[in-house]
């Protein structure tokens, strides 16, 4: 165990400061991702709740069905 005189308190304090700053930076990186995800989720919810999105739903459904049919037909042809 080092004696009191052998402990480099300044170095320890600097190391603690450096780690605190790294943690601060890491928090902001994670928080930025979290904030962006929340932002995009809100945008999506707003869009899907809009009148224009709802009245164009049949068009999207038709496109979905068409795509599914085309893909199924292609698959069936490939396997035949």
């Amino acid at each position, binding site marked *: 165990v080092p004696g009191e005189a052998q402990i480099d308190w300044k170095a320890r304090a600097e190391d603690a400061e450096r780690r605190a700053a790294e943690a601060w930076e890491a928090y902001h990186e994670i928080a930025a991702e979290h904030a962006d995800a929340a932002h995009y989720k809100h945008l999506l*919810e707003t869009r899907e709740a809009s009148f224009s999105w709802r009245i164009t739903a049949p068009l999207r459904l038709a496109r*979905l069905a068409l795509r599914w049919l085309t893909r199924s037909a292609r698959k069936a042809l490939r396997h035949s």
Partner: protein
Amino acid sequence: LTVKSVTVAIPVLNGAAYLDEVLRAVLGQRVDVPVELLIVDSGSTDGSIEIARRHGARVIEIPGSEFSHGGTRNLAIAEAKGDVVVFLTQDATPASDRWLASIVEGFEQADDVALVFGPHVPRPGHSHVFAREMRDHFKTWGGGERIDLHRLDRSPEALADYRRYPYKLQFFSDVNGGVARWAWEQIPYRDVPYAEDQLIAREMIESGYAKVFHPGAAVHHSHDYPPTRFLRRYFDEFRSLREVLGHVEPFGLEHAARTVFHQTRLDREFMKGHGVEGLPLRRALARSARHHAVRALGSGLGARADRLPAPVRKALSLDGRSTFSPVEVPASPLLEEGPLPASTRPRPRDYFSFVRSGFPRRPLTLDPAPGSLAEKESLTLAWVLPPWDRGSGGHMTIFRLIRMMEQRGHRCSIFVFDPSGTERDAGEELRERIRSGFVPIEAQVFNGLEYWIGADVGIATQWWTAYPMRDLPGCYEKLYLVQDFEPAFHAYSAEYIWAEETYRMGYRCVAYTPWMARILRQDYGLEAESFECGTDLDVYRFQDGSREPATVTVYARKETARRGVELALSGLALLTERRPDIRVVLFGSHDRPKPAFDHVDLGVVPPARLAELYRRSTVGIAFSLTTHSLVAQEMMASGLPVVELAGDNVSSALGESGEVVLQADPDPVSVAAAIEALVDDPARARAIARRARSFVEERPWERSGEQLEGALRSFLARPRDPAAGFSREATRVAATLGGRPYDRGPHE
């Protein structure tokens, strides 16, 4: 809440199939508090009571007719000895021996935690559909992996969100969930036949209590029925949700098709992730599609059971119940259709609410600084900025300074404060806009202040931002970067007074130009240092050679009143009357001025083209009635001789460097004379231009960064005088125009 004892309570009716396993798992829990095991049996005939007694449980027997999901759980809590009662169902087996400890840990997250729940994991061998659905369902809280404590925020925006999507806050399952006795004493279970857990959660959340999801509190619980049995179960479930909570599941061909397609696609990804391919995958997906179609049908019919004849209801019900009986439950004012209560109704955005909440006057919020802060090598700096348009000069300066601080080893973060609510971009988009349109900063960018945690130093950069910055927590020091005397950006108005108010908040200031720093010191009693701005010398390259004859280029940004455009144009009107050879080129304005002499107006011009214009012109004019303009410095960098207005603001920025611009008095005759002097004396003009180029070369952005850091460190090294610059006194309207009382005479 510190949990001192726990009761695990299980309502039972013929639950022998799993009860032994469930009770073994409960008794095998590793937890530091006493645990009581309580069974409420409502008429089992399959030996459930014997199993319970064999495991040492206290058994309360009630007749089957007295059972209801809410009422029976109230009885259990009333009989229980624990200050937390954790409910399981007879077929929900704790998945680990830390299940109960996790529930207890959930309650210990805060003093107001009323409910804690955990995830459900399907029993081994049950369909992949449940595994995927449950995984996705419980991802709603803490991503399914973290403890998630939630409460209802009472802001209008949060309440509007809650009304649109109450599920996240309302969901609670007493298949596997704990109730705090103190909360139950205030809000007991309603005596409803079904959905009692959703109802108690709604009431507790709306009363302001907290709820916690704990991923470690998992149980094995799932039902694997044939399709017809599932159809009837979903019918019962959604009929009850309609009866109790008024929940109406969307129904219709399009909705069903989309749901089946979407859910099946999610199942496919899940199965592929588990290595299932080929025929087994196709078979599994066929089962998925069938299950989701059955669910869509059962839930849609159940939610519309009131429209079905009683015999049909009976045939569809797994319980054989033919009735549809809405239950009287307390209405939630927060979920009613129509306007929200006045106190919770979202209002049109309140632009100046940040000013209103800035009063009464109060000192800056600061944490006590550690003694070593001034010597700290790498400081954390959190900047609050107003939103910007592409090409904003003020923001270019801020972003340059941020970059300089980063290059000097400091860590920065940027928060955009937008009281108008017009900035719609996410933080990462804002960051990209800064990096592509201004400077390649490293800092993370946030739209709003929600994620603020503080920093060694918080920096306000404009008068709006000084209001929220004053109260933001977690800073040892707060700095105000003052690029200009912003009250003068407004007519003498409320905005003028509010902008001026920020100079009475007690910030330590770093100002662009000694002139601005002197105003802050002398007129407002603030501690203020100054910095100089650099110029982008790569774009604005020096040209000493030939220029087009008698061409005067004018920064004519009419929409910015402090640019004194009308003064420049008045001078030019005089000059062009007597010198028809003078050619005038205007730039910089969307709102083009229309002077009564021949001219060319280029409008807003990108920097590269602007640099070319400066290199070809004879004289440049970029007036500023407040802080010296950076446009003038860019002209100087390009070797264009500049006419400026004489004043402290200009001379303090240009220092003692000799004649680097030609200064004119602020009247049309002097302006015209100064322009003419430079046009007619090319040798003098060239000498001024060379001195001007040397001046800007001596002031790179690195020097600005050095000055800012020097100011910052000198503030951190000096203890703060709590009274310096902070004033509880209101300013006296009109008596203090420009911050200078009339009786003290003009500013010197």
